């Protein structure tokens, strides 16, 4: 009895080996203020270091949209499902860049923070989480730009339709975040051992974009590639996103269900691998 009491008396026991599934979510919750402050830091430092400030949030998607409209729309003449080209591309770009930003930024989280991780303990998962939330602000701004363009097309009388799938947009956002985060966590854990994977990330993300329906609709994809493209969870997300706001795109519960499961598995795998690496990466990096 007395013995039991004494064992329970300790607040923390640091041990060599812990279970793979000891994810310390409790700790993450304890440090939620840090998460908020890191997001604030990211925003302020971005805002302060640039001449145009948050204007950059607009410029990047706007120019990408113009280039895509010119190259893929006008020169290559790729179908846009009957939608106005700028709107079609901007929808794809907005969603894709959120995912891509989450992925590329989290994929270097160990390397970028090696210094601070080597000195002080806090749940490492806070860092990638803060990246995902920081990017959410950026996404919000870009989404606003998309809405402005949408309003413009309404004003000039182009027929567009919202769909009831609009209600699913929060789900889409969460899925994108989890997907980017999960993949990023796997990659960052591997890069502590294999540096050359970092080169692969930027390049891989670019390639992956062409395997996603950012610059073309799923309907226009060649039949024999279609299953592959549809197997990419981002395809479902972008198609659903377009259907929700522009009224053209593929949606089925089956594909959404499949994507959710795939993303869920990747995310859980990412968190497990990250957590395993986190414990001793300071010794190897």
């Amino acid at each position: 009895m007395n013995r039991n009491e004494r064992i329970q008396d300790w607040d923390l026991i640091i041990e060599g080996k812990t279970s793979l599934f000891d994810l310390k979510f409790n700790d993450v919750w304890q440090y939620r203020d840090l998460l908020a402050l890191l997001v604030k830091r990211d925003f302020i430092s971005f805002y302060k270091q640039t001449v145009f400030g948050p204007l950059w949030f607009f410029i990047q998607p706007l120019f990408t949209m113009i280039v895509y409209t010119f190259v893929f729309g006008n020169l290559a003449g790729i179908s846009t499902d009957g939608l106005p080209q700028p709107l079609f591309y901007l929808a794809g770009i907005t969603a894709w860049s959120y995912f891509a930003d989450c992925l590329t930024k989290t994929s270097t989280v160990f390397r970028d923070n090696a210094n601070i991780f080597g000195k002080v303990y806090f749940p490492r998962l806070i860092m990638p989480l803060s990246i995902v939330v920081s990017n959410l602000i950026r996404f919000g701004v870009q989404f606003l730009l998309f809405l402005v363009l949408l309003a413009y097309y309404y004003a000039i009388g182009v027929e567009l339709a919202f769909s009831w799938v609009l209600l699913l947009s929060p789900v889409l956002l969460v899925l994108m975040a989890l997907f980017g985060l999960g993949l990023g966590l796997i990659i960052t854990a591997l890069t502590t051992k294999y540096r050359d994977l970092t080169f692969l990330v930027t390049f891989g993300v670019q390639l992956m974009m062409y395997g996603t329906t950012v610059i073309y609709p799923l309907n226009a994809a060649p039949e024999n590639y279609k299953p592959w493209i549809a197997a990419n969870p981002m395809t479902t997300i972008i198609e659903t996103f377009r259907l929700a706001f522009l009224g053209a795109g593929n949606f089925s519960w089956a594909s959404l269900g499949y994507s959710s499961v795939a993303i869920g598995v990747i995310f859980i795998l990412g968190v497990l691998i990250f957590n395993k690496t986190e414990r001793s990466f300071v010794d190897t990096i």
Partner: protein
Amino acid sequence: MSRKVIEVHQLSKAYQIGEFTTGTLSKDLERWWITRVRGKEDPFLKVGETNQRDKRGDSNVVWSLRDINFSIDQGEAVGIIGKNGAGKSTLLKLLSRVTAPTAGNIKVKGRIASLLEVGTGFHPELTGRENIYLNGAILGMRKREISRKLEEIVDFSGVERYIDTPVKRYSSGMYVRLAFAVAAHLESEILIVDEVLAVGDADFQKKCLGKMGEVSKGEGRTILFVSHNMASVKALCSRAILLTDGQISMNRDTSSVIKSYLNDPRSVPLERDFLRDPAIRRGNGEARFAEILVNDGVEFIDPSKTISIQCTIQVQKVIESLFFTLMLRGRESSEPIGASRMIPVSKENLEAGTIVSFTISLPPGLLRTGMYPAYFWIGKPRKIIGEHYPYDVVDSRFYLNCVSDKDEYELGYNPSDPVGFFTIDTKMRNLNIDQYVIK
């Protein structure tokens, strides 16, 4: 009976040395292909390394800590000392959860905060106030807690005027002050401090030591303090743990641990390699210091005895004369605090290849305790400053690390402020005391 707040049981940490992966995926794949699939020798294994399984098992692993056991009670301030590589930093890293132990465990009661290096996570673009919040949160404080302590922190740091200025405009001193202020106001039950006091000006260091003493004695918080500065360890800690090669070789009251450490011939980590590296030397190189030995290379010096410094100089080219100067810098500020006169070693020509050696001595009781960076100069003197050129200068590479196992009061000093660096040797004459009896 006081309560245990830290209990360390059979704690060990092993590091793998050498290449356990080639570092890139492509090479690892190549290695796998060559060794496993084609069955040839590993091309990435270093030449000369044996590949026997039984030998590699031992040789690739270094135990930085091995089977450490100790416990610490609430409110204790414990110093951890040991020479470089003894495992001090590893122990702190394990305690602060930066890395995980290989075996054994640590049980902790209450929150641990570590000051492994102050200012971690400071962002140059953010203002002082914003950084207080960020740094506080990194160290584990809640936002509410920081807001409550904000005024106190700003006050302690002494940078109130610039609190809304981005910290990139701060001087390094202000930066450190602010960073330490945040850490010192953590509401953690256990505080881990590693050499933080090596920075900041003297005043502030005193303030920090005072704050830490107050924290452990007044607030009942527990402190683990790692430092090479024996004077601060002695001032702050009641108990000390001496680590030698990853094991605890002593765990007793501070005075006796320091005493045995200082007398241990193994504690001689002076970095003499510097003298072998001509690339980072000043002076024209016509003569070079080949060896500098302070008190025969003992790391700690007893200032109440004569301090002797032995220098060996190698002449590289024919020189017409050789003069020597010793200068000492201050304990904390590194400002020059005093110098010897120019001592003529030779006023005649010295041929290349000549080896000169001599011993300089400082009188007993000159210096007070502390680390004094030393500056050694050899050269050819001229009256005009511009032509006064050195053959060689060795600056702040060697320290006079004066430590005493007696405290200031026992040494006959007035322990209150201000302290100063050396003793003014005074003699009193014509003492006259007229006694009056007042009713």
